[in-house]
């Protein structure tokens, strides 16, 4: 960009000359991509000490182990009566991925808080980058990791199930719908937790405060929803109605052992609803993405406490969108102006 006028060395320590950059600089897109890459690296501990690498990869292992175990069990029980028992469904596996909440709680503050704490933001915004670009890149990096950590185990589960099934083509044909349901539900799950975590992290310079706030908010709202639902005297489910797993792994309300597709004799109860149905279940912010997941997989909310409530689907989607939009608005507001 600038022309160099080479000077003779004067003996100064720094006198090593200067080479102007003769290539082409990228614009906003390149800047956004650079922030995204830097955030990804930081979140998984690349270019950092081994201690900072340990945590994210441990969580990835925690999120993936059940899938690997299931594939192993399915292989071992192949051709035995136990083969028919489905240990975990794709829908349920996304619930296992909620363990990634711990990752999000620590990773999002780690990629956002230091920039404000160390007053690095002016260095970013003195470059071809807007506040929106910055927030999109940061949320995108966290969402990418949450998506990857949630989606890859599902892939392991699917491929494993495909391989241990009697007929791979038959399994593929019978489970075509999961090929879109899994990614869609995982995107909804990733976007929700990433946006919420980043929005909270944008409000403080202290990582630990952001992490604690997120966990308290989600777990607290869950407990709050449970308490309100119990206290509201909401309608109990009819006595004797419990939940079993059908052949296709879907939960269904039916008297024990009498479900139309039940493969289990009366006696063993896989899951049981002991909780009342209540609209207060909608304030459970931890379960909000699980409700959306239910809608994607089953077309209705089947997770406590919202299950069985009239208009539960609309309520669940409304709460989900409210949280997502509030989080996005908070991020926009926090990064609209940055004073050097």
């Amino acid at each position, binding site marked *: 960009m600038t022309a160099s006028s080479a000077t003779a060395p004067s003996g100064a320590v*720094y006198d090593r000359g200067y080479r102007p950059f003769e290539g082409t600089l990228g614009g906003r897109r390149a800047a956004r991509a650079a922030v995204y890459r830097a955030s990804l690296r930081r979140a998984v501990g690349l270019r950092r000490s081994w201690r900072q690498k340990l945590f994210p990869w441990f969580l990835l292992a925690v999120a993936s182990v059940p899938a690997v175990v299931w594939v192993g069990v399915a292989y071992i029980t192949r051709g035995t009566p136990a083969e028919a028992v489905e240990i975990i469904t794709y829908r349920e596996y996304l619930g296992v991925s909620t363990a990634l909440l711990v990752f999000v709680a620590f990773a999002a503050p780690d990629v956002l808080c230091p920039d404000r704490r160390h007053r690095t933001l002016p260095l970013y915004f003195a470059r071809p980058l807007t506040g929106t670009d910055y927030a999109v890149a940061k949320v995108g990096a966290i969402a990418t990791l949450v998506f990857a950590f949630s989606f890859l185990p599902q892939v392991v589960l699917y491929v494993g199930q495909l391989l241990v099934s009697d007929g791979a083509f038959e399994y593929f044909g019978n489970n075509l719908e999961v090929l879109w349901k899994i990614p869609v539900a995982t995107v909804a799950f990733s976007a929700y937790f990433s946006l919420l975590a980043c929005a909270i992290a944008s409000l403080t310079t202290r990582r630990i405060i952001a992490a604690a706030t997120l966990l308290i908010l989600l777990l607290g709202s869950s407990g709050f929803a449970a308490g309100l639902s119990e206290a509201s005297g909401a309608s109990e489910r009819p006595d004797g109605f419990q939940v079993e797993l059908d052949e296709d792994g879907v939960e269904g309300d039916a008297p024990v052992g009498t479900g139309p597709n039940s493969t289990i004799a009366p006696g063993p109860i896989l899951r049981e609803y002991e909780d009342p149905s209540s609209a207060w279940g909608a304030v459970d912010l931890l379960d909000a993405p699980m409700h959306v997941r239910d809608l994607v997989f089953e077309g209705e909310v089947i997770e406590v406490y919202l299950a069985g409530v009239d208009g539960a689907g609309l309520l669940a989607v409304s709460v989900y969108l409210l949280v997502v939009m509030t989080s996005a608005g908070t991020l926009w507001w926090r990064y609209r102006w940055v004073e050097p």
Partner: protein
Amino acid sequence: MALVETRELTKTYDAGTVRALDGLTVTVDHGVVGLVGANGAGKSTLFRILLGLTEPDAGTVVVDGIDVATDPIGVRARLGFMPEHDCLPDDQSAADIVSTLGEIAGLAPRDARQRASDVLDLVGLDEARFRPVEGFSTGMRQRSKLAQAIVADPTLVLLDEPTAGLDPAGRQEMLDLVARLGRFGISVMMATHLLDDVQSTCDQVVMIDGGRLVGSGRTEDLLETTGVVRVDVGGHGARLVDELGAVATLLPDGSVELPAGDDRIDAVVDAVARAGLPLHALSSRRASLDGLFAITDRDVG
């Protein structure tokens, strides 16, 4: 084409009660420019506006031919910025920081790593660049900040108080670096309240106070035109004053002083010869920027 051109630039804070910039009109050419003013004079506000991070209430700013109001991103692509405050993440190495900021400035990752290495070498952080900046001295941190400002080879680098907090040796090193950037063809605008720094480093100076322009121009010219010429004619100063006219002043010791200017010394020598006076001594003394700033500030105020 001027590098920076502002017209009637005005910026107020706190519902108009604080005027950070008050109709600032100034033109700056390529080179090393000192932006001089006391704390609160409006230097940082001017930088924020140049970077497109703050909108002025009125007026226009054009940087390298681009209007900041219409294309702030395009302007920022041509600028480097070194803030006054500490702004480096402690847990990262200087190489990582500069390289990442180079990428954000638009360099490809490979280019960014190479450029980071080059500019960190340039500022004297060769081996140290791989250490976390946590353990850096103030001077090393300042040099890291300078390196990130120039990593993408900007047309203009804005330096906000680059010598703040440095010991005399570190300050001199920083000023040497700034002067060298100018020789490399990178224009620099250095905000400072230390006039000595400007006088020793900058070829242009812009002086502001209370958001208003106090004076601007080439440092040499400003100092030249505000210097003085003193003549000792052995107690016959009154006759020389008559010869020179109102421009000359008779001092108590009998010598004569008059403002410096083009051909002033030749005019004095001619006047002494015409009056047939003995010329005992003739000296010319430049004003310091301190003195100049005090004079012009008083005149404006």
